[in-house]
Structure formats: C-alpha cells, structure tokens
C-alpha cells in the first residue's frame, strides 16, 4: 500500500514538472514570436538599443578578455604537453585556434555573458514587474516587448559575436605568448601551422553560434524577469533561473549546432 501511494505521489510530481517545463517552453516560444514580429516592424528605440549594446558589449569586455586569455593559455599548455610527446609542438596553436574559433570562444563567452548580463536583465525586469513599472509601461500604450525585450535581444545578438571575436583573438594571442616565451616552441612554424589549419568556416561557425547564444541569453533573461514571482524572493529566483537555464540551453544547443553545422560544411 505505501508503495502505491509513493508511486502515485511521484507520478503526480513528475507530471507537474513536465507540465511546468512544457508551459515554460510554450511561453518562451510565444515571446519569441512576439519579439520577431516587433523587430520586423522596426519599432526599436535606437537610443535604448545603443545603451544596451554599451551595457552588454562594452561593459562585458573585461570578463570576456580574462576568460579568453586564460582559456587560450591553459589549452595551449595542455595541448603542448601531449603533442610534445609525439614531436608535434608546432601544431599546438592550430589546435588552440580551431577550438577557440568554433567551440570554446563562443561557448565560454556566452556562459560568461549569461552570468553577467542574463542575471542583470532578469533582475532589472523582475524589479520592474514587482514595482508595477511594466504595468505602467502598458498603461502608457507601450508594448513591453517593443520597449524592453527587442532592444536587449538585438543588442545581445550584435554584441555576442563581437565579444566572441575579441575572446578568440585574445585567447590565441595569449596561447602564442605562452607557447613561444614559456614553452619554447618555434614561433614561425607555430604561426604558419595555425594559419594553415584554421579555416574561415571555423570562425563562421563560432560567429553563427554566438549570434544564437546572444538570442538565448536575452530571451531567457527577459522572460524570467517579466514573469518573475512577487517580492524579493521572486526576483532572486528569476535571476538564478535566468543564469542556470541560459547556461544549460547554451551547452545543449552547442552540441546540436556543432553536429548540424558540421554536416552543412561537410565535416561529418
């Protein structure tokens, strides 16, 4: 008898959880549709868009540069330790470059920006919701999606590819310096091999991914903020969920994007 009750209870909570996840996905899909409709009708406030590019792009540079530099250096060192065993030292930077361009650059940049910007967006919009500022916008005949979501989404989709390029360049540069000055790799072959094995398509893959991740960060941050529960607890939970959900979505999406784009460019 207790097992029957336990099973019924577990089913109840599992069903509730599935219903919750499906509802959230459905609402994000509806928000995406609304955002696309708004963006296509050019209702964007340019002043707000520029401010958001400044906030998401310019202000995220320090964290992105540090992440890119240390990831490049660690990756360079680890690759060298393995390649040195088979006398392939000068291929180190090529591995770093391809990894940074197509995978690590876009993913790590997006994860750092999700932590900084996704949280800030959810907290700002959540506070606006709790203090009725979003309702005030609506009473002033302004659609919250036009005014709050679209500028953040476009700004994130412009800023993320630029930040990714910055992260990749810094990562490769840092890895080069570590390889040449600390590990003693011959610089000319290191550089030539990197250019030989890094293709345009690697960078293009990274840029497409970062454009999509920018959308994910802004959409989830805005959605969580605009639908947050009441009070300080609601804002806190929305902020945490925005970061966790965007990070997980980025990591899962990255796998499928890699497979899809690999197929498209004939690497699979």
């Amino acid at each position, binding site marked *: 008898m207790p097992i029957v009750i336990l099973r019924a209870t577990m089913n109840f909570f599992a069903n509730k959880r599935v219903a919750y996840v499906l509802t959230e996905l459905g609402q994000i899909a509806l928000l995406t549709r609304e955002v696309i409709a708004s963006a296509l009708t050019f209702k964007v406030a340019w002043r707000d868009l520029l401010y958001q590019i400044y906030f998401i792009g310019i202000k995220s540079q320090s964290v992105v540069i540090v992440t890119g530099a240390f990831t490049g250096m660690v990756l360079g060192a680890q690759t060298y330790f393995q390649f040195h065993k088979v006398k392939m030292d000068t291929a180190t930077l090529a591995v770093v470059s391809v990894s940074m361009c197509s995978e690590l650059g876009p993913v790590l940049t997006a994860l750092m920006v999700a932590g900084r910007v996704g949280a800030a967006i959810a907290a700002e919009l959540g506070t606006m919701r709790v203090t*009725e*500022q979003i309702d005030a916008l609506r009473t002033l005949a302004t659609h919250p999606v036009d005014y709050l979501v679209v500028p953040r989404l476009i700004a994130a989709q412009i800023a993320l590819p630029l930040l990714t390029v910055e992260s990749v360049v810094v990562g490769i540069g840092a890895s080069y310096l570590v390889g040449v000055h600390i590990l003693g790799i011959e610089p000319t072959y290191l550089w030539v091999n990197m250019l030989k094995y890094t293709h345009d398509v690697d960078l293009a893959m990274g840029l497409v991914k970062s454009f999509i991740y920018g959308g994910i960060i802004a959409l989830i941050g805005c959605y969580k903020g605009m639908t947050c529960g009441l009070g300080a607890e609601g804002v806190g939970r929305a902020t945490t969920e925005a970061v966790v959900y965007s990070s997980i979505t980025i990591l899962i999406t990255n796998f499928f994007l890699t497979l899809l784009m690999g197929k498209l460019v004939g690497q699979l």
Partner: protein
Amino acid sequence: MIEARSLEKSFGAQKILDGVSFRIENGESVAIIGRSGSGKSVLLKHLIGLLQPDAGEVLIDGENIVGMNERQLLRVRRKFGMVFQGAALFDSMTVAENVAFALRRKKKFTEAEITRRVTFALEVVDLPGTENKNPAELSGGMRKRVGLARAIIYEPQIVLYDEPTTGLDPIVSDSIDKLIIRVRDHLKVTSIVVTHDMRTARRVGNRVLMLHDKKIYASGAPEEFFASQDPVVRQFVDGVADKKVI
C-alpha cells in the same frame, strides 16, 4: 463610457470578483471603496486590460476589450491614464523623462514642445523645478504627484487612481485629493478612484461604489451613501472592526 458586465475573476482557488457589474458615464467621477483585499485594484486593472477576467465583459465606449491581445489593447489604452498605488515611476529615468515618456513614444512632438508640456504638467501637480531629480530622491506624496503628471500629460479621457492617498499623511492626502478634483474639473476627464480612505471617497466622487463580498454591494451619491443605514456600509464607513477580528 465604461461598463463592466458580470465580471468574474479568480486567482487559483480564491474567487476575487463574482458577477461585478456597473456603468460609468463620460465625465463622471466615481470612487470605488471596499476593504483591503476585497479586489478593488484587481477590478481597476480589468478596466484598462491589465488583467483579463475569467468571465464577463468590459466595454470602453461600447467596445469589448475582453479577449483583445496586447497590441489591440494599446489602442484602447491611449484613452487612459493610470496612477499606481506605489507610483510605479521608471527608476532609471529622471522626473522629466518619466513625465515625458508617453509624448516621446508618440514621436509627434518637438523637444521644445515636450519640455513646455512637462513643465506645465509639473506645475499642475505643484512640483515645479523637480525635472532633474531621480524618483528615489522624492517622498511618497511627490512620487504620486509625478505619477499623476505622467498620466495626464497626454490628455487622456479617463484617469484611473489606485489608492492615491494610501500611506500618506493627512495633509499630503488632502493635497492629492485637491489635485484629483482639479484634474477632474479642468481636464473634464472621467475619474475612477479606488480607495479605502473615506475622506477621499467623499470628496472626489460624484458617485461611490462599494465592493463587498466579490460584488458591487452598494452604489450612490456620496451624501446618500454616507448616510446609509445598511449595516455593512455603516460598519465600513464608521471603521468598526468585526468582533472576531478583535
């Protein structure tokens, strides 16, 4: 003209409105009173489409706004101004930017015209010279006045006030009451004031509606309403707590 027909609204298992119906003519000033938690603010938000009822209709100038999507509602909301209980000023903007918000969104006005209108609106609410202050620097009463200036600057036909004097001292409450009357008389707007402040209800309303037990329980001109001998009305007007509350 605003008309509510058999409005019903529940949050989860809790029913808030159960068959609320009333009609407010253009130019009327109506005070909606009721105990805390009786659903006054919920009712007010239904009138401007911030909440959608579970059943019933809300007609604005004969047009049913129930079931309209957010974009369709934007057109209807241009007729409204709303003053929120906590003022709901945009805290990332100055007072002038808050007040000018609706005008800037319309993109019909020059900066000089916007500045002139903002200055005038702030004078109407007795807050001249506060243009460059941030909302955080203002007192509760000042914030509500800025909220009122923001709501009337684009000359709406209907102004909704959600608890305009709650949490304010009697002198500031008196000034807000006078301001509501001034806006009503000068701009000839329809005013709907949700309040549980009896003095505000008596002064600003041409008519008083009382929300009780999820319905409109009583309605009438202020003199007639406040003279009522109905025990529920009397208890609320006199501010007598239930024995079980004591």
